[in-house]
């Protein structure tokens, strides 16, 4: 296929896509001349080019469509019918182009059906104006209003030239066209000043050395190539008002960019190696140039990454058309709102999400939105809305697909999930709505026809999810009955660079993408050991069984399967979709940003690897594909806990080193709030008619007692009918029900409280699962329920002063109200050093409560320093807070005479431990 044709195919494909989208816009806004002019010009361009290239079928079709559009321009109303015909003409054009691309020739066939239809519509005019004009003057677009540069021609002339050109073979007509158009394309100042007003065969003399010679061929080529150039010129002219400024773009082959990217990646790796060497050497003479190299490389990398970026709008381009067609097909009125089309992401990522996005929009239109009648009956606007939004968020792109339809039928999904044996009835009932909604991503779930008709959603949703997960993205659903469903997709900006955990299995190192890793657990022959059920290894993790695979075993290089259990190692807890499993490795090194290189074609069939990379030390390391491992786990490991992955339940009081388990709920105007799960006693759904009012305050009878209800936000009103979600907090015999709109989820995440809110009912805000969430301060609500709660029934006769040491502001804020409520005067310190100085200066302190695990000097160090200090400080009783009460911690605590060890977050345990200490006695003894 020659270059000319290939260029034509690329350009025409792009033009047709634009026309598609523009036409749909035009249909909604038939008076918009700008859109029409744009469409017209594009179709005209295609027609013109086809003529020169000798593609009669395409030309005839484009011509007929152009004629009809010319009629629109003259005032013929654009009916839905005519737009539909034009759209199907465009489809036909695309099909022919596709054939052309595959075979290099125009396929045989007849388009009379469409052409006659188009002609009929074009001639069926309300005002008897002109005969079905083929395409003469009236179709010419308005000339662009911009001063022409020397050598440029107006669009009018261009059009005239095109119309004058009858087709291939007629060199003396084609040639003049080439001259004027050629000029704007080659931006360089032209020596000859062609007077282009009237294309005369005289002009081209300067351009073409032998005008009479081989004629048709070069002339055609020239004009065909020139046309798109002139076209670009026109777009620029209409879009930018300033005549002087131009958007300068060039078309670059994708392969060239890919190659550039590869080279830059290599440069980055080389730089990393150099930096590593520089660290080991004292010689500083080359440190400065190296630093500059480092900066330049980083900038270069960024620049090259940018060239791979494309606005997400290019993946959305087809959607207005899809929605329009669906809207006609389904008889629903649908508005498609697109926000953030300019958001850029890597073209590789874009390719992968294109189809899932289309699919989801289809789904939303088809199943999400009710019929027009249904909407009106539900008191909603007749037109349904599908909203697509994209925005950057940190290193990821978030895409939301929201409809304002009926929402997912969660009850049906629950029922189906049980029927299909995906989860037990009891589990399903305990699951939050968000968890239940996720069942639609289950492979079996979506393909069953019965489900689709009941639950409304799901055909191919598993495929959507798989696609998104292969690029390290996650998908989430939020649905409200009667209000609609929102899918949130988060995907990395680029696939080329990922954070990975470097591990060792057997003799070799591997990289595990960080996105799939939840946590690391050390296993040994002792307390945390790998057990076996019928040979399949499992691990008890927080009262749950976690299926385990050993990486060496997976890769078929294990020496002795048997002694693996005895070995000490690490389990990388990974999650792929709903499946959670552990990968047993021998050693864990560090995390590193790695440049992902594709596997060789010879090795791509191995499902375990996602690619390879070169580490800073120059070694090649294979990247494990968590999806591949997950599939292997499902095949190889029986007796796993299956789908009972309702990570909701009760991973409660236990805490990882840095992660906090939080209960997320909706409270007030749809905002998300959270409270540490360990503070929560129970979650309840109560019938609203059980709520009683005493003295203007809501109460319910709860377990034989009265429990006051307090809204979690002033905006929440207790529902008058249906059920009401409550979060119950209790302290001794007292209980309080916090009224919330909806329990959303339980998340285990690293807590980074970001903004200290200026409200007493909030501790601050944090990002949980990508959502801004307020962390509520329970201490604010307790006194609202019981006036005397703050003063506390357990209040000590005399107020003792207590020093609370914890590095985390969150825990300090959490515990101090509790301790105050228990009747202590609380002084807080954020570190061992601060605590020691407070102890020195403040003689009132009678008890010390300290976190034992703190960065820098730990709680043990603090106690050790206290014990060797002055007698008053040395004799103080100490209560240690610890995440895990291990044997060694107990031993150390005893040697330091720590009075008691209490699990972090065990409030009642802490209060009890404090009560046991008789502060008066202690201080007297000291």
């Amino acid at each position: 296929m020659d270059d000319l044709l290939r260029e034509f195919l690329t350009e025409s494909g792009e033009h047709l896509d634009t026309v598609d989208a523009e036409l749909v816009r035009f249909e909604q806004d038939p008076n918009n001349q700008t859109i029409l002019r744009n469409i017209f010009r594009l179709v005209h361009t295609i027609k013109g080019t086809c003529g020169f290239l000798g593609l009669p079928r395409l030309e005839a079709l484009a011509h007929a469509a152009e004629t009809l559009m010319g009629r629109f321009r003259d005032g013929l109303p654009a009916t839905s019918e005519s737009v539909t015909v034009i759209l199907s003409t465009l489809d036909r054009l695309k099909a022919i182009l596709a054939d052309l691309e595959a075979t290099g020739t125009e396929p045989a066939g007849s388009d009379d059906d469409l052409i006659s239809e188009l002609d009929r519509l074009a001639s069926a005019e309300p005002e008897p104006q002109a005969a079905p004009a083929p395409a003469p003057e009236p179709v010419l677009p308005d000339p662009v209003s911009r001063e022409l540069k020397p050598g440029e021609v107006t669009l009018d002339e261009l059009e005239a030239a095109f119309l004058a050109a009858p087709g291939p073979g007629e060199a003396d007509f084609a040639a003049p066209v080439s001259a004027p158009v050629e000029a704007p394309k080659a931006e360089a100042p032209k020596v000859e000043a062609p007077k282009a007003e009237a294309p005369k065969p005289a002009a081209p003399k300067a351009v073409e050395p032998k005008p009479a010679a081989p004629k048709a061929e070069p002339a055609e080529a020239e004009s065909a190539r020139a046309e798109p150039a002139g076209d670009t010129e026109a777009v620029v002219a209409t879009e930018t008002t300033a005549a002087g400024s131009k958007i300068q773009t060039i078309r670059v082959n994708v392969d060239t960019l890919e190659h550039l990217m590869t080279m830059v990646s290599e440069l980055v790796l080389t730089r990393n190696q150099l930096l590593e060497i520089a660290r080991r050497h004292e010689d500083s003479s080359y440190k400065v140039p190296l630093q500059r190299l480092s900066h330049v490389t980083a900038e270069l990398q960024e620049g090259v990454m940018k060239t791979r970026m494309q606005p997400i709008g290019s993946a959305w381009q087809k959607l207005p058309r899809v929605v329009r067609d669906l809207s006609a097909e389904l008889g629903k009125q649908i508005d498609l709102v697109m926000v953030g089309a300019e958001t850029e992401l890597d073209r590789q990522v874009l390719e992968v999400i294109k189809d899932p996005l289309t699919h989801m929009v289809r789904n939303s239109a088809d199943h999400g939105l009710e019929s027009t009648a249904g909407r009106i009956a539900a008191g909603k606007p007749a037109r349904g809305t599908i909203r697509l939004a994209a925005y950057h968020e940190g290193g990821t792109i978030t895409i939301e697909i929201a409809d304002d339809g009926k929402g997912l039928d969660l009850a049906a999904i629950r029922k189906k999930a049980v029927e299909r044996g995906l989860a037990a009835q009891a589990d399903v009932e305990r699951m939050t709505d968000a968890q239940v909604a996720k069942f639609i991503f289950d492979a079996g779930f979506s393909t069953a026809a019965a489900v689709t008709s009941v639950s409304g959603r799901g055909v191919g949703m598993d495929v959507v999810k798989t696609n998104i997960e292969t690029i390290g993205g996650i998908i989430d659903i939020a649905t409200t009955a009667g209000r609609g469903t929102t899918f949130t997709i988060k995907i990395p900006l680029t696939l080329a660079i990922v954070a990975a955990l470097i591990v060792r299995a057997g003799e070799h190192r591997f990289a595990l993408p960080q996105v799939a890793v939840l946590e690391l657990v050390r296993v040994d022959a002792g307390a945390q050991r790998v057990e076996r059920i019928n040979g399949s290894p499992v691990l008890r993790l927080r009262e749950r069984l976690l299926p385990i695979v050993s990486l060496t075993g997976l890769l078929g290089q294990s020496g002795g399967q048997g002694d693996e259990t005895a070995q000490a190692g690490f389990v990388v807890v990974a999650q792929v979709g709903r499946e959670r499993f552990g990968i047993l490795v021998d050693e864990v090194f560090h995390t590193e940003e790695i440049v992902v290189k594709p596997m060789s074609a010879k090795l791509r069939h191995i499902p375990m690897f996602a690619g390879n990379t070169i580490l800073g030390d120059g070694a090649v390391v294979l990247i494990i594909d968590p999806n591949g491992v997950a599939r292997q786990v499902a095949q190889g490991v029986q007796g796993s806990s299956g789908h009972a992955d309702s990570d909701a339940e009760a991973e409660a009081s236990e805490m990882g080193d840095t992660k906090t388990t939080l209960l997320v709920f909706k409270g007030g105007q749809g905002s998300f709030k959270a409270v540490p799960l360990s503070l929560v006693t129970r979650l309840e759904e109560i019938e609203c008619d059980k709520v009683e009012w005493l003295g203007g305050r809501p109460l319910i009878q709860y377990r034989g007692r009265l429990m006051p209800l307090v809204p979690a936000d002033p905006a929440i009103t207790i529902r008058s009918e249906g059920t009401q979600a409550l979060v119950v907090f209790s302290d001794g015999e007292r209980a309080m029900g916090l009224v919330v709109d909806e329990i959303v989820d339980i998340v285990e995440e690293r807590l980074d409280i970001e903004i200290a809110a200026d409200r007493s009912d909030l501790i601050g805000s944090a990002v949980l699962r990508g959502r801004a969430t307020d962390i509520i301060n329970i201490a604010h609500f307790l006194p609202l329920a019981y006036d005397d709660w703050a003063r506390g029934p357990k209040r000590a006769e005399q107020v003792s002063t207590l020093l609370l040491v914890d590095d985390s502001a969150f825990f300090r804020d959490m515990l101090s109200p509790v301790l105050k409520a228990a009747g202590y005067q609380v002084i807080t310190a954020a570190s061992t050093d601060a605590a020691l100085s407070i102890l020195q200066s403040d003689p009132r302190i009678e008890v010390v409560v300290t976190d034992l695990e703190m960065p820098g000097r730990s709680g043990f160090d603090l106690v050790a320093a206290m014990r060797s200090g002055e007698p008053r400080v040395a004799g103080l009783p100490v209560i240690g807070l610890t995440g895990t009460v291990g044997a060694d911690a107990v031993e150390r605590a005893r040697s330091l005479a720590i009075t008691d060890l209490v699990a972090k977050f065990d409030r009642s345990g802490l209060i009890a431990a404090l009560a046991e200490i008789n502060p008066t006695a202690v201080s007297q003894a000291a």
Partner: protein
Amino acid sequence: MQAANANGAETGPTDDYVTVFVGDTLFGLAIERVHDVFVPSGVTPVPLAPSEIVGLLNLRGRVVTAVCLRRRLGMPDAETQDDKANPKMAIGLEQGGETFALVVDGVGEVLKLGTDSREAVPINLDPRWRNLATCVHRLDGRLLVILDVDALLGFSAAGAKAA
């Protein structure tokens, strides 16, 4: 010698070959296909890979798939396993935009050979070899088997299992 190519005394055109040896056999590879000659180091084995693939290695910042010529030809692994004492050599080849390293026992000189010494591949050769060789050249005292680079790298995952 190279420059004299155009007006050389030899009859007919000549081809340049890089010679490599595995065991006692001498092989030739068309010089235009050879990009590099280097000592492979730091090879990362790929579990579950076809047996011909020794692993991946870092060649100046590029990840290169190392293919063992010995295994490709169905020859047993070299008896001396102490790689350090006797380092192998590798030939950098390119196919389909990918770079491969062909691991051989050693690399010899570059030979310029005309058609006069060329022979067809003997039909009694192992079929595996016959598929990989294009022709044989008679040299002084020994034979040179010319290998087809594309066929050499043209093994698939399925074919590899048969080996």
